[in-house]
Protein backbone atom coordinates (compact mmCIF):
# COMPACT_ATOMS: atom_id res chain seq x y z
CA UNK A 1 0.00 0.00 0.00
CA UNK A 2 1.43 3.28 -1.09
CA UNK A 3 0.50 6.95 -0.87
CA UNK A 4 -1.66 8.43 -3.60
CA UNK A 5 -0.95 11.83 -5.08
CA UNK A 6 -3.87 13.71 -6.58
CA UNK A 7 -3.26 16.72 -8.79
CA UNK A 8 -4.49 18.22 -12.06
CA UNK A 9 -2.99 20.55 -14.68
CA UNK A 10 -5.98 22.92 -14.34
CA UNK A 11 -4.79 23.72 -10.81
CA UNK A 12 -1.72 25.31 -12.44
CA UNK A 13 -3.91 27.46 -14.69
CA UNK A 14 -5.82 29.22 -11.92
CA UNK A 15 -4.06 32.57 -12.41
CA UNK A 16 -4.40 35.06 -9.56
CA UNK A 17 -2.49 37.85 -11.34
CA UNK A 18 0.99 39.30 -11.23
CA UNK A 19 2.76 39.01 -7.89
CA UNK A 20 -0.13 37.31 -6.05
CA UNK A 21 1.28 35.01 -3.33
CA UNK A 22 -1.20 32.19 -4.06
CA UNK A 23 0.42 31.55 -7.44
CA UNK A 24 0.82 28.58 -9.80
CA UNK A 25 4.55 28.48 -8.94
CA UNK A 26 3.58 27.14 -5.50
CA UNK A 27 2.20 24.01 -7.07
CA UNK A 28 5.06 23.77 -9.57
CA UNK A 29 7.56 23.86 -6.70
CA UNK A 30 5.67 21.10 -4.90
CA UNK A 31 5.26 18.88 -7.96
CA UNK A 32 8.92 19.31 -8.99
CA UNK A 33 9.95 18.08 -5.55
CA UNK A 34 7.51 15.16 -5.61
CA UNK A 35 8.91 14.08 -8.99
CA UNK A 36 12.36 13.43 -7.51
CA UNK A 37 13.70 9.97 -6.67
CA UNK A 38 12.75 9.80 -2.98
CA UNK A 39 9.10 10.06 -4.00
CA UNK A 40 9.20 7.48 -6.81
CA UNK A 41 6.80 5.21 -4.90
CA UNK A 42 4.02 7.83 -4.97
CA UNK A 43 1.12 6.80 -7.15
CA UNK A 44 0.08 9.84 -9.21
CA UNK A 45 -3.60 10.05 -10.05
CA UNK A 46 -5.54 12.36 -12.29
CA UNK A 47 -8.71 13.77 -10.80
CA UNK A 48 -12.30 14.17 -11.98
CA UNK A 49 -14.25 17.40 -11.65
CA UNK A 50 -16.33 17.65 -8.51
CA UNK A 51 -20.01 17.06 -9.24
CA UNK A 52 -22.73 19.53 -8.35
CA UNK A 53 -23.94 16.96 -5.84
CA UNK A 54 -20.55 16.92 -4.11
CA UNK A 55 -20.34 20.73 -3.98
CA UNK A 56 -23.92 21.27 -2.81
CA UNK A 57 -23.42 19.13 0.27
CA UNK A 58 -21.62 22.22 1.59
CA UNK A 59 -22.49 25.15 -0.71
CA UNK A 60 -26.02 26.12 -1.81
CA UNK A 61 -26.48 25.67 -5.55
CA UNK A 62 -27.05 29.43 -5.93
CA UNK A 63 -23.60 30.09 -4.52
CA UNK A 64 -21.95 27.63 -6.90
CA UNK A 65 -23.72 29.27 -9.83
CA UNK A 66 -22.73 32.73 -8.60
CA UNK A 67 -19.05 31.74 -8.51
CA UNK A 68 -19.13 30.35 -12.04
CA UNK A 69 -20.97 33.44 -13.27
CA UNK A 70 -18.08 35.58 -12.02
CA UNK A 71 -15.37 33.59 -13.84
CA UNK A 72 -14.04 35.97 -16.53
CA UNK A 73 -13.50 35.12 -20.20
CA UNK A 74 -10.18 36.90 -20.07
CA UNK A 75 -8.12 38.76 -17.50
CA UNK A 76 -8.83 38.74 -13.80
CA UNK A 77 -11.86 39.42 -11.61
CA UNK A 78 -11.49 40.18 -7.90
CA UNK A 79 -14.14 38.71 -5.59
CA UNK A 80 -12.47 40.65 -2.79
CA UNK A 81 -9.01 42.17 -2.28
CA UNK A 82 -7.48 38.73 -1.79
CA UNK A 83 -9.58 36.40 -3.92
CA UNK A 84 -9.00 36.61 -7.67
CA UNK A 85 -10.53 34.65 -10.57
CA UNK A 86 -9.08 33.94 -14.01
CA UNK A 87 -10.62 32.09 -16.96
CA UNK A 88 -9.42 28.69 -15.68
CA UNK A 89 -10.39 29.25 -12.04
CA UNK A 90 -13.74 27.47 -12.28
CA UNK A 91 -12.15 24.38 -13.76
CA UNK A 92 -9.34 24.46 -11.17
CA UNK A 93 -11.82 24.80 -8.30
CA UNK A 94 -13.80 21.81 -9.62
CA UNK A 95 -10.63 19.71 -9.86
CA UNK A 96 -9.52 20.78 -6.39
CA UNK A 97 -12.77 19.71 -4.73
CA UNK A 98 -12.97 16.68 -7.04
CA UNK A 99 -9.49 15.57 -5.97
CA UNK A 100 -10.49 15.43 -2.33
CA UNK A 101 -13.63 13.40 -3.08
CA UNK A 102 -11.70 10.99 -5.33
CA UNK A 103 -9.01 10.60 -2.65
CA UNK A 104 -11.67 9.88 -0.03
CA UNK A 105 -13.19 7.21 -2.31
CA UNK A 106 -9.83 5.53 -2.87
CA UNK A 107 -8.79 5.56 0.77
CA UNK A 108 -12.14 4.32 2.10
CA UNK A 109 -12.05 1.55 -0.51
CA UNK A 110 -8.55 0.62 0.70
CA UNK A 111 -6.75 1.30 -2.58
CA UNK A 112 -4.05 2.91 -0.45
CA UNK A 113 -3.68 3.89 3.17
CA UNK A 114 -3.39 7.63 2.62
CA UNK A 115 -3.37 10.37 -0.02
CA UNK A 116 -2.12 13.89 -0.60
CA UNK A 117 -4.08 16.32 -2.78
CA UNK A 118 -1.71 18.86 -4.39
CA UNK A 119 -4.37 21.32 -5.44
CA UNK A 120 -5.23 24.99 -5.71
CA UNK A 121 -7.23 27.12 -5.17
CA UNK A 122 -7.14 26.28 -1.46
CA UNK A 123 -10.43 25.86 0.38
CA UNK A 124 -10.53 26.37 4.12
CA UNK A 125 -11.58 30.06 4.08
CA UNK A 126 -14.52 29.44 1.71
CA UNK A 127 -17.71 29.55 3.75
CA UNK A 128 -20.90 27.94 2.46
CA UNK A 129 -22.02 31.23 0.88
CA UNK A 130 -18.86 33.35 0.88
CA UNK A 131 -15.66 33.02 -1.16
CA UNK A 132 -12.72 34.66 0.57
CA UNK A 133 -9.04 34.39 1.47
CA UNK A 134 -7.98 32.88 -1.92
CA UNK A 135 -10.66 30.14 -1.51
CA UNK A 136 -13.70 29.35 -3.65
CA UNK A 137 -15.02 25.98 -2.47
CA UNK A 138 -14.40 24.39 0.93
CA UNK A 139 -12.40 21.44 -0.42
CA UNK A 140 -11.74 19.68 2.89
CA UNK A 141 -15.32 20.08 4.13
CA UNK A 142 -16.62 18.82 0.78
CA UNK A 143 -14.41 15.74 1.18
CA UNK A 144 -15.62 15.19 4.73
CA UNK A 145 -19.26 15.46 3.68
CA UNK A 146 -18.58 13.07 0.78
CA UNK A 147 -17.12 10.49 3.17
CA UNK A 148 -20.22 10.63 5.34
CA UNK A 149 -22.82 10.75 2.57
CA UNK A 150 -21.39 8.20 0.14
CA UNK A 151 -19.44 5.86 2.38
CA UNK A 152 -21.54 6.16 5.51
CA UNK A 153 -18.63 6.94 7.80
CA UNK A 154 -20.14 8.05 11.11
CA UNK A 155 -17.33 10.32 12.27
CA UNK A 156 -14.88 12.34 10.18
CA UNK A 157 -12.21 14.59 11.71
CA UNK A 158 -10.55 17.54 9.96
CA UNK A 159 -7.23 18.74 11.38
CA UNK A 160 -6.22 22.15 10.03
CA UNK A 161 -2.63 23.23 10.69
CA UNK A 162 -2.59 26.12 8.20
CA UNK A 163 -1.43 29.30 9.98
CA UNK A 164 -4.82 30.91 9.30
CA UNK A 165 -8.05 29.77 10.91
CA UNK A 166 -10.23 27.70 8.59
CA UNK A 167 -13.38 29.76 9.06
CA UNK A 168 -14.96 28.12 6.01
CA UNK A 169 -14.44 24.55 7.16
CA UNK A 170 -15.66 25.46 10.62
CA UNK A 171 -18.79 27.16 9.28
CA UNK A 172 -19.53 24.14 7.10
CA UNK A 173 -19.08 21.45 9.76
CA UNK A 174 -19.76 22.98 13.17
CA UNK A 175 -23.46 22.08 13.38
CA UNK A 176 -23.07 18.34 12.79
CA UNK A 177 -21.81 16.00 15.54
CA UNK A 178 -20.50 13.64 12.87
CA UNK A 179 -17.61 16.04 12.31
CA UNK A 180 -14.75 17.18 14.49
CA UNK A 181 -12.82 20.28 13.38
CA UNK A 182 -9.48 21.04 15.04
CA UNK A 183 -7.45 24.09 14.03
CA UNK A 184 -4.12 25.53 15.11
CA UNK A 185 -3.55 29.03 13.80
CA UNK A 186 -1.90 32.34 14.62
CA UNK A 187 -4.11 34.53 16.79
CA UNK A 188 -5.24 38.00 15.63
CA UNK A 189 -4.37 37.65 11.95
CA UNK A 190 -6.67 36.86 9.03
CA UNK A 191 -9.54 35.97 9.09
CA UNK A 192 -9.95 37.01 12.74
CA UNK A 193 -12.04 33.96 13.71
CA UNK A 194 -10.93 30.83 15.57
CA UNK A 195 -11.13 32.06 19.13
CA UNK A 196 -11.02 29.39 21.81
CA UNK A 197 -14.64 29.99 22.75
CA UNK A 198 -15.83 29.10 19.23
CA UNK A 199 -16.65 25.48 19.99
CA UNK A 200 -19.45 24.66 17.56
CA UNK A 201 -21.71 22.10 19.23
CA UNK A 202 -18.70 20.86 21.16
CA UNK A 203 -17.18 19.51 17.92
CA UNK A 204 -14.79 22.38 17.22
CA UNK A 205 -11.40 22.78 18.90
CA UNK A 206 -9.72 26.10 18.14
CA UNK A 207 -6.14 26.54 19.28
CA UNK A 208 -4.92 30.07 18.56
CA UNK A 209 -1.15 30.45 18.95
CA UNK A 210 0.64 33.72 19.63
CA UNK A 211 3.09 35.17 17.09
CA UNK A 212 6.47 33.55 17.60
CA UNK A 213 5.13 30.13 18.66
CA UNK A 214 7.08 27.16 17.31
CA UNK A 215 8.04 23.51 17.81
CA UNK A 216 7.65 23.42 21.58
CA UNK A 217 4.23 25.02 21.51
CA UNK A 218 3.10 22.68 18.74
CA UNK A 219 4.16 19.62 20.77
CA UNK A 220 2.45 21.01 23.85
CA UNK A 221 -0.90 21.60 22.17
CA UNK A 222 -0.72 18.25 20.38
CA UNK A 223 -0.30 16.35 23.65
CA UNK A 224 -2.77 18.36 25.70
CA UNK A 225 -5.45 19.26 23.21
CA UNK A 226 -5.31 17.81 19.72
CA UNK A 227 -4.49 14.17 20.48
CA UNK A 228 -6.98 13.84 23.38
CA UNK A 229 -9.76 15.43 21.28
CA UNK A 230 -9.00 13.13 18.35
CA UNK A 231 -8.93 9.97 20.49
CA UNK A 232 -12.13 10.97 22.23
CA UNK A 233 -13.86 11.38 18.90
CA UNK A 234 -12.59 8.09 17.39
CA UNK A 235 -12.78 9.25 13.75
CA UNK A 236 -13.35 6.75 10.94
CA UNK A 237 -11.32 8.98 8.59
CA UNK A 238 -8.98 11.91 9.17
CA UNK A 239 -8.70 14.79 6.71
CA UNK A 240 -5.79 17.19 7.02
CA UNK A 241 -6.07 20.82 5.90
CA UNK A 242 -2.36 20.98 5.18
CA UNK A 243 -1.27 24.60 4.94
CA UNK A 244 2.42 25.24 5.38
CA UNK A 245 2.33 28.97 6.09
CA UNK A 246 3.17 28.47 9.78
CA UNK A 247 6.73 27.84 8.56
CA UNK A 248 9.30 30.28 9.97
CA UNK A 249 10.16 31.54 6.47
CA UNK A 250 6.58 32.31 5.41
CA UNK A 251 5.94 35.99 4.55
CA UNK A 252 2.27 36.05 5.59
CA UNK A 253 2.51 35.10 9.26
CA UNK A 254 4.75 34.87 12.31
CA UNK A 255 4.70 31.30 13.59
CA UNK A 256 7.96 29.36 13.55
CA UNK A 257 7.27 25.78 12.48
CA UNK A 258 9.96 23.87 10.57
CA UNK A 259 9.92 21.02 8.06
CA UNK A 260 10.74 18.68 10.95
CA UNK A 261 7.70 19.90 12.85
CA UNK A 262 5.49 19.10 9.88
CA UNK A 263 7.00 15.62 9.64
CA UNK A 264 6.52 15.09 13.37
CA UNK A 265 2.93 16.35 13.37
CA UNK A 266 2.10 14.16 10.37
CA UNK A 267 3.53 11.11 12.15
CA UNK A 268 1.44 11.85 15.24
CA UNK A 269 -1.74 12.17 13.19
CA UNK A 270 -0.91 8.93 11.37
CA UNK A 271 -0.33 7.12 14.66
CA UNK A 272 -3.81 8.09 15.87
CA UNK A 273 -5.24 7.17 12.47
CA UNK A 274 -3.58 3.74 12.71
CA UNK A 275 -5.40 3.13 15.97
CA UNK A 276 -8.80 4.66 15.14
CA UNK A 277 -9.36 4.12 11.44
CA UNK A 278 -6.82 1.75 9.89
CA UNK A 279 -4.53 4.65 9.03
CA UNK A 280 -7.02 6.36 6.73
CA UNK A 281 -5.76 9.90 6.10
CA UNK A 282 -6.49 12.29 3.23
CA UNK A 283 -4.35 15.41 3.25
CA UNK A 284 -5.37 18.52 1.31
CA UNK A 285 -3.07 21.41 0.41
CA UNK A 286 -4.10 24.81 1.76
CA UNK A 287 -1.62 27.74 2.14
CA UNK A 288 2.17 28.17 2.23
CA UNK A 289 3.72 31.16 0.47
CA UNK A 290 7.49 30.81 0.70
CA UNK A 291 8.21 28.57 -2.28
CA UNK A 292 11.37 26.88 -0.86
CA UNK A 293 9.77 26.42 2.57
CA UNK A 294 6.57 25.13 0.98
CA UNK A 295 8.37 22.58 -1.19
CA UNK A 296 10.52 21.36 1.70
CA UNK A 297 7.57 21.18 4.10
CA UNK A 298 5.36 19.29 1.66
CA UNK A 299 8.28 16.92 1.06
CA UNK A 300 8.57 16.25 4.80
CA UNK A 301 4.80 15.82 5.10
CA UNK A 302 4.46 13.47 2.12
CA UNK A 303 7.53 11.47 3.17
CA UNK A 304 5.86 10.86 6.53
CA UNK A 305 2.66 9.82 4.75
CA UNK A 306 4.63 7.36 2.58
CA UNK A 307 6.35 5.86 5.59
CA UNK A 308 3.10 5.51 7.50
CA UNK A 309 2.30 1.86 6.70
CA UNK A 310 5.77 0.79 7.80
CA UNK A 311 5.59 2.99 10.90
CA UNK A 312 2.16 1.59 11.74
CA UNK A 313 3.47 -1.95 11.31
CA UNK A 314 6.37 -1.16 13.63
CA UNK A 315 4.07 0.25 16.31
CA UNK A 316 1.71 -2.72 15.87
CA UNK A 317 4.59 -5.18 16.38
CA UNK A 318 5.84 -3.16 19.31
CA UNK A 319 2.36 -3.36 20.85
CA UNK A 320 2.16 -7.14 20.37
CA UNK A 321 5.63 -7.62 21.88
CA UNK A 322 4.71 -5.46 24.86
CA UNK A 323 1.50 -7.36 25.47
CA UNK A 324 3.39 -10.68 25.24
CA UNK A 325 5.94 -9.37 27.71
CA UNK A 326 3.19 -8.30 30.13
CA UNK A 327 1.56 -11.73 29.82
CA UNK A 328 4.90 -13.49 30.40
CA UNK A 329 5.55 -11.30 33.42
CA UNK A 330 2.05 -12.01 34.74
CA UNK A 331 2.51 -15.77 34.18
CA UNK A 332 5.95 -15.69 35.83
CA UNK A 333 4.81 -13.94 38.99
Amino acid sequence: MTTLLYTHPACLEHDTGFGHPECPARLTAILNTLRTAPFAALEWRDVPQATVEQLTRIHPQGYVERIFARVPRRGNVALDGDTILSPQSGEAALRAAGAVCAAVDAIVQREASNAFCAIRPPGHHAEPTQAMGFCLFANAAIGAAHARAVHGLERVAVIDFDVHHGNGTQAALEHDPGYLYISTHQAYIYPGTGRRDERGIGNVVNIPLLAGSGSTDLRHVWRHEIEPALRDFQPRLILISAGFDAHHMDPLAELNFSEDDYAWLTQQILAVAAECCEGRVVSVLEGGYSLPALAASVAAHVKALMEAPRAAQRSLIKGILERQKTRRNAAGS
Partner: protein
Amino acid sequence: MYEFLKYEVRDAMTADPIAIGPDTRLREVEELFESHDFNGVPVVDDRRHLLGILTKFDLLKAFSLDAHALVPHYDTIMEQPAAAVMTRDPVSVEPRLPLSRLLQKLVEMRTKSLPVVENDRLVGIIAREDVLKALRRATIQHEIPIHEDSPS
Protein backbone atom coordinates in the same frame (compact mmCIF):
# COMPACT_ATOMS: atom_id res chain seq x y z
CA MET B 1 26.38 71.84 36.61
CA TYR B 2 22.74 72.88 37.17
CA GLU B 3 22.43 74.81 33.92
CA PHE B 4 20.15 72.18 32.34
CA LEU B 5 17.52 72.75 35.04
CA LYS B 6 17.02 76.29 33.74
CA TYR B 7 16.02 75.15 30.28
CA GLU B 8 12.43 74.99 29.16
CA VAL B 9 10.95 73.18 26.23
CA ARG B 10 10.76 76.38 24.19
CA ASP B 11 14.55 76.80 24.47
CA ALA B 12 15.23 73.54 22.71
CA MET B 13 12.22 72.82 20.48
CA THR B 14 11.93 73.32 16.76
CA ALA B 15 9.48 76.21 16.45
CA ASP B 16 6.75 76.32 13.77
CA PRO B 17 7.45 72.79 12.59
CA ILE B 18 6.29 71.25 9.37
CA ALA B 19 2.85 69.74 9.89
CA ILE B 20 0.42 67.92 7.62
CA GLY B 21 -3.33 68.00 7.20
CA PRO B 22 -5.59 65.04 7.98
CA ASP B 23 -6.14 64.34 4.27
CA THR B 24 -2.46 64.02 3.38
CA ARG B 25 -1.89 60.63 1.69
CA LEU B 26 0.43 58.15 3.41
CA ARG B 27 2.51 58.12 0.22
CA GLU B 28 3.28 61.83 0.74
CA VAL B 29 3.92 61.28 4.43
CA GLU B 30 6.46 58.61 3.58
CA GLU B 31 8.18 61.01 1.16
CA LEU B 32 8.28 63.60 3.93
CA PHE B 33 9.96 61.11 6.23
CA GLU B 34 12.48 60.32 3.53
CA SER B 35 13.38 63.89 2.65
CA HIS B 36 13.46 65.21 6.25
CA ASP B 37 14.81 63.24 9.12
CA PHE B 38 11.50 63.25 11.00
CA ASN B 39 10.40 60.41 13.16
CA GLY B 40 6.88 61.75 13.36
CA VAL B 41 4.92 64.65 11.97
CA PRO B 42 2.06 66.55 13.67
CA VAL B 43 -1.35 66.50 12.01
CA VAL B 44 -3.22 69.81 12.28
CA ASP B 45 -6.37 71.45 10.93
CA ASP B 46 -6.23 74.71 8.99
CA ARG B 47 -6.06 76.73 12.23
CA ARG B 48 -3.13 74.64 13.42
CA HIS B 49 -5.13 72.87 16.08
CA LEU B 50 -3.34 69.64 16.83
CA LEU B 51 -5.43 66.65 15.67
CA GLY B 52 -2.87 63.91 16.02
CA ILE B 53 0.63 62.77 15.36
CA LEU B 54 1.76 60.35 12.67
CA THR B 55 5.03 58.55 13.34
CA LYS B 56 7.05 56.05 11.32
CA PHE B 57 5.70 53.47 13.75
CA ASP B 58 2.09 54.37 12.86
CA LEU B 59 3.02 54.11 9.19
CA LEU B 60 4.62 50.67 9.63
CA LYS B 61 1.66 49.49 11.66
CA ALA B 62 -0.70 50.35 8.82
CA PHE B 63 1.00 47.69 6.70
CA SER B 64 1.15 44.93 9.32
CA LEU B 65 -0.78 41.66 9.11
CA ASP B 66 -4.23 41.85 10.65
CA ALA B 67 -7.64 40.25 10.41
CA HIS B 68 -8.92 42.42 7.54
CA ALA B 69 -7.17 40.83 4.58
CA LEU B 70 -5.00 37.80 4.02
CA VAL B 71 -2.45 40.02 2.30
CA PRO B 72 -2.12 43.69 3.29
CA HIS B 73 -3.16 45.78 0.28
CA TYR B 74 0.08 47.71 0.11
CA ASP B 75 -0.90 50.02 -2.77
CA THR B 76 -4.27 51.07 -1.40
CA ILE B 77 -2.86 51.55 2.10
CA MET B 78 -0.37 54.07 0.62
CA GLU B 79 -3.36 56.09 -0.66
CA GLN B 80 -5.05 56.30 2.73
CA PRO B 81 -5.26 59.71 4.45
CA ALA B 82 -3.14 60.51 7.49
CA ALA B 83 -6.30 60.65 9.61
CA ALA B 84 -6.79 56.89 9.10
CA VAL B 85 -3.60 55.85 10.85
CA MET B 86 -2.44 58.81 12.99
CA THR B 87 -2.43 58.58 16.77
CA ARG B 88 -5.30 60.78 17.92
CA ASP B 89 -5.24 62.94 21.04
CA PRO B 90 -1.49 62.63 21.33
CA VAL B 91 0.37 63.58 24.47
CA SER B 92 1.65 67.13 24.04
CA VAL B 93 3.67 69.49 26.21
CA GLU B 94 3.65 73.21 26.89
CA PRO B 95 6.53 75.47 25.82
CA ARG B 96 7.16 76.45 29.45
CA LEU B 97 7.63 72.90 30.69
CA PRO B 98 11.08 72.43 32.27
CA LEU B 99 13.25 70.47 29.88
CA SER B 100 14.19 68.08 32.69
CA ARG B 101 10.54 67.09 32.96
CA LEU B 102 10.24 66.71 29.21
CA LEU B 103 13.30 64.43 29.29
CA GLN B 104 11.60 62.36 31.95
CA LYS B 105 8.46 62.03 29.78
CA LEU B 106 10.44 60.94 26.72
CA VAL B 107 12.17 58.23 28.76
CA GLU B 108 9.00 56.97 30.41
CA MET B 109 7.02 56.91 27.17
CA ARG B 110 9.94 55.61 25.12
CA THR B 111 8.79 58.07 22.52
CA LYS B 112 11.04 59.97 20.14
CA SER B 113 9.34 63.34 19.98
CA LEU B 114 6.37 65.26 21.35
CA PRO B 115 4.36 68.14 19.90
CA VAL B 116 4.45 71.43 21.75
CA VAL B 117 1.07 73.15 22.11
CA GLU B 118 0.17 76.59 23.41
CA ASN B 119 -3.37 78.01 23.53
CA ASP B 120 -4.58 74.95 21.66
CA ARG B 121 -2.24 75.58 18.73
CA LEU B 122 0.81 73.71 17.59
CA VAL B 123 3.88 75.89 18.22
CA GLY B 124 6.73 73.40 18.08
CA ILE B 125 8.02 69.89 18.24
CA ILE B 126 10.66 68.59 20.57
CA ALA B 127 12.65 65.45 19.89
CA ARG B 128 15.31 63.34 21.64
CA GLU B 129 18.01 65.04 19.56
CA ASP B 130 16.92 68.50 20.75
CA VAL B 131 17.21 67.44 24.38
CA LEU B 132 20.60 65.82 23.80
CA LYS B 133 21.84 68.99 22.13
CA ALA B 134 20.62 71.04 25.10
CA LEU B 135 22.38 68.68 27.49
CA ARG B 136 25.61 69.12 25.60
CA ARG B 137 25.24 72.88 25.66
CA ALA B 138 24.46 72.91 29.36
CA THR B 139 27.44 70.77 30.31
CA ILE B 140 29.96 72.48 28.02
CA GLN B 141 29.09 75.89 29.46
CA HIS B 142 29.81 74.48 32.86
CA GLU B 143 33.33 73.52 31.80
CA ILE B 144 34.23 76.99 30.63
CA PRO B 145 36.64 78.43 33.25
CA ILE B 146 34.90 81.13 35.27
CA HIS B 147 37.73 83.67 35.13
CA GLU B 148 37.59 83.92 31.35
CA ASP B 149 35.63 86.84 30.04
CA SER B 150 32.08 86.22 29.16
CA PRO B 151 29.92 88.77 27.35
CA SER B 152 27.27 88.73 30.08
